């Protein structure tokens, strides 16, 4: 930015202040009027949408480099072959034009919390309230053999839906009939706790129907299945016996992508034709670089009434990047829910009314265990004022009794409805 434009901005700010003194319409609200949202996923897009719904005249800018959103939920069905990538994709252009958002198509590279600006390439985007919803980054530090981008590109994590999802699908299809698939699951917390086990179920179903001599090895860094444990165990035993081998407490040390080898701390070396390494995760880079990741330099602490950062004022963090409350999974559904609380809190501040202090949010998470059969876990979370966190409501929430086709129907309806709620016109 040039000195001149900086001066101009300061003049404009001074002018706005004068207008406020003179009785501009938003005087009572003492309104910061520019909200900038980094990231057009379930957190960011939902926040932008609901902010617009609550504030027809607010300036809202979405910073998002992709032209199309590809949803992670249902992406395991793309790996499996039941859906294609286009089925889980939605372009941003209609969304931003319908809701009157300014769309900066680029990557948010840095946040300046003093100047209250986000740098995107050569552009600086000023904000009064900033919402940061960048999703997760992948941490390859402890995995020898996956240090370069080229090595990483050969071993898909497919943990952000998109080209890697298709790559894993293609590798499965190209695998020999008696091939071995090896997937690794990182220690919690990671995005979508049941996701790896859903993927394992669907890969097993693929093998059973297309390559029954094949085998899936699941190496979990955790000591046990992290979500819907009893349900997944029952399905694997009943339907996929001999197809899935589950190995708990498996700490991945190195990967030889060219040779198709994984090496574990305790379990030694394993050869496979398809490698799917889901790396450990942490808050998105832009959030960490801005000093927001105050929980172990990994996740971003927030106030659960507003999702404002506990590290830097005026910046709100949503979704997988936050240091979650007890029992709160890193999920798209949760990000969508948090976004509404955040949009409500910012709106209340803009209007000069009290920030609502009794948020209730919920999680509903469906997992496919075959082409048609689905299980769910649900929970309701309320604010505990004494503990200043969200807690699951005892007695509410729960699991499916067993996999069912009916829940398959509801899962597909859920996917459509949450996509409309997040990115609908």
């Amino acid at each position, binding site marked *: 930015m040039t000195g001149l434009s900086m001066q101009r901005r300061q003049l404009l700010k001074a002018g706005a202040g004068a207008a406020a003194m003179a009785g501009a319409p938003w005087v009572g609200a003492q309104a910061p009027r520019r909200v900038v949202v980094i990231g057009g996923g379930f957190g960011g897009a939902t926040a932008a949408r609901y902010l617009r719904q609550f504030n027809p005249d607010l300036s809202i800018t979405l910073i998002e480099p992709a032209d199309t959103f590809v949803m992670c939920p249902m992406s395991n069905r793309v790996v499996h072959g039941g859906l294609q990538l286009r089925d889980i994709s939605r372009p941003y252009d209609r969304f931003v034009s319908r809701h009157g958002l300014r769309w900066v198509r680029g990557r948010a590279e840095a946040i300046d919390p003093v100047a209250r600006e986000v740098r995107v390439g050569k552009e600086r985007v000023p904000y009064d309230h900033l919402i940061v919803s960048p999703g997760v980054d992948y941490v390859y530090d402890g995995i020898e053999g996956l240090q370069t981008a080229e090595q990483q590109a050969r071993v898909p994590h497919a943990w952000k839906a998109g080209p890697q999802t298709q790559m894993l699908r293609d590798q499965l299809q190209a695998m020999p009939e008696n091939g071995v698939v090896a997937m690794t699951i990182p220690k919690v917390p990671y995005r979508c706790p049941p996701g790896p086990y859903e993927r394992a179920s669907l890969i097993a179903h693929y093998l059973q129907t297309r390559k029954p001599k094949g085998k899936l090895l699941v190496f979990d860094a955790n000591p046990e299945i992290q979500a819907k444990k009893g349900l997944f165990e029952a399905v694997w035993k009943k339907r996929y016996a001999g197809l899935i081998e589950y190995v708990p407490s498996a700490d991945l040390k190195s990967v030889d992508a060219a040779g198709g080898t994984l090496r574990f701390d305790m379990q030694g070396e394993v050869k496979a034709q398809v490698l799917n390494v889901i790396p450990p995760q942490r808050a998105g880079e832009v959030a960490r670089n801005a000093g927001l990741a105050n929980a172990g330099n990994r996740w971003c602490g927030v106030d659960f009434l507003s999702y404002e950062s506990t590290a830097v004022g005026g910046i709100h963090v949503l979704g997988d990047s936050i240091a979650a409350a007890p029992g709160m999974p890193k999920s798209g559904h949760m990000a969508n*829910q948090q976004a509404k609380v955040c949009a*409500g809190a910012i709106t209340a501040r803009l209007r000069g009314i009290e920030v609502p202090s009794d948020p209730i949010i919920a999680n509903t998470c469906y997992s496919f265990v075959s082409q048609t059969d689905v299980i769910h876990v649900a929970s309701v979370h309320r604010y505990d004022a004494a503990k200043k966190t969200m807690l699951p409501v005892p007695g509410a929430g729960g699991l499916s009794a067993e996999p069912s086709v009916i829940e398959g129907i509801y899962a597909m309806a859920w996917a459509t409805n*949450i996509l*409309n*709620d997040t990115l609908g016109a």
Partner: protein
Amino acid sequence: MPIRKAQLLVARWARTGAVGLALTGAAMVHAQAPAPASNVSDFQVQLWASSCMSCHGPGGKAVGTGLAIGGKPAQELYNKLLGYKNGKLPATVMHQHAKGYSDEELSRIADHFASLK
């Protein structure tokens, strides 16, 4: 929904690969956009209801059997929510959600959805 019908639907997805999401792009719903309530209590209810919309669609205009609850009579919605909460109505997941709310909260959420035309 009868199991047989559900199975046919799922089988169709399996065959065509793609009924659900791509097609609904054309049927995107434009929810009415109410301004936020001016007092904090009403605004809180509006936010509670917005949390339901992840599954029930913006403005309660969901796709999927029985999921579109926007604009339905308040008493009907409230009776259903109470039925789910006390276990008198069978459900796949709503009995687990309804138990997270007081009767009063369910009543106010029902009123809110009824007001969405």
